């Protein structure tokens, strides 16, 4: 049998659990409508300005760095699985790859991409 089938069953179980519990709670729970209650929380004061405020460009940079490094990390996995049988060749190849990665990290570092104020 396909070994991924149980993962799918488990996923369906989890989704059913999540949907049913939240749905039932929504139906059963008491309801009372009062406009003040529905305001976004701002310490009891009337909300001021746009709720979707602008945020720092730094968060965007982190997302880009994450994409770069996560994909590079993924390249290490197939190599790691067969590393036992690769010998010196595999070590030198991947050492070069990691050095390139580190140079990239150092470049980001020196350019100030990792500074938070």
């Amino acid at each position, binding site marked *: *049998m396909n*070994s*991924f089938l*149980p*993962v799918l*069953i*488990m*996923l369906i*179980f*989890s*989704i059913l*659990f*999540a949907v049913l*519990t*939240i749905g039932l*709670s*929504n139906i*059963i*729970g*008491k*309801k009372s409508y009062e406009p003040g209650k*529905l*305001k*976004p*929380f*701002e*310490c009891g004061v009337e909300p001021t300005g746009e*709720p*979707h*405020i602008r*945020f720092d460009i*730094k*968060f965007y940079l*982190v*997302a880009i*760095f*994450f994409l770069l*490094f*996560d994909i590079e*990390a*993924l390249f*290490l*996995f197939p190599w*790691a*699985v*067969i*590393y*036992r049988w690769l*010998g*010196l060749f*595999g*070590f030198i190849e*991947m*050492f070069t790859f*990691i050095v390139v*990665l580190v140079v990239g*990290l150092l470049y980001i570092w020196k350019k100030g991409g*990792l*500074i938070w*104020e």
Partner: protein
Amino acid sequence: MLFWIIAEIIKILVVFTGLLLAAAYLTLLERKVAARIQNRLGPREAGWHGILQPIADGIKLFFKEDIMPSGANKALFILGPMIAVIPALTTFSVIPFGAPITIFGHAVPLQITDVNIGILLILAFTSLGVYGVVLGGWASNGKYSLLGGIRTAAQMVSYEISLVLSIVGIIMIAGALSLAHIVGEQSHIWFIVYQPVGFVIYLIASTAEMNRVPFDLGEAEGELVAGFHTEYSSMEFAFYFIGEYAQIVVNSAIITTLFLGGWQGPFLPPVIWFLIKVSLVILIYLWFRWTYPRLRYDELMSFGWKFLLPLSLANIVVTGFVMLFIR
């Protein structure tokens, strides 16, 4: 064939209920541990020493009013807490929790399924958790929620890289991605002996992944009220906590499987060994939470990028070097 289906369904049901119960009772354990660390007694009213407290909490939250703030994105607002729970529960399907047993002449592995890319599947599912936080924070239509959600997302993706890289050493030694195979390789010596640095990196990075103290910047009570779940109430609020505690159980099980020899151990039955090891790792996480103060956000980011990431890369190179030249 029929036997296989029945065995799978039984295993899934047992693991599913076990995981949910464990997540529920972890809230009680956390309160008890916190109380003991702070020289208090903790919850004692509901049942013997508060043994019914999680059930009381669950019933209370279930019957509470479900408040959705005006201007919230309805679909995403509900989807957020669901995504926080679903991957955490699904991940456990590839973790082996005992030695294979024989029932009616059929060998039944005590693992829901042995997928040949087990580790990749775990990483894929655990990294989905970030969506729960981001969607919840974004859809709430509140400033605190948005700030908490964005901060948490940046933190989770930063530590995810170190988390992924800390496992590479294990795979190099084991030579496979299947978790059953990795446990089998540890029959003589646990991988924590070969990979102590990887273990420490995984422990720290997974704490950051779960947004637990000292890395709980996304819900820093002092400044962001409750971060991304400020606007949540009722069962949706409870789901963020089920997700967090299920995630703790799952991460402890992953650490047990990868570094602490899985279910292997002398004298006691394998399942008991697995439960003992998982409980000990859970206690480490709880101990972290009630011992360390919260980091500042710039410290958190520079620790992740400037220390943990180079360290995990160095760990891979050193592991490769030792495997090749020293053995």
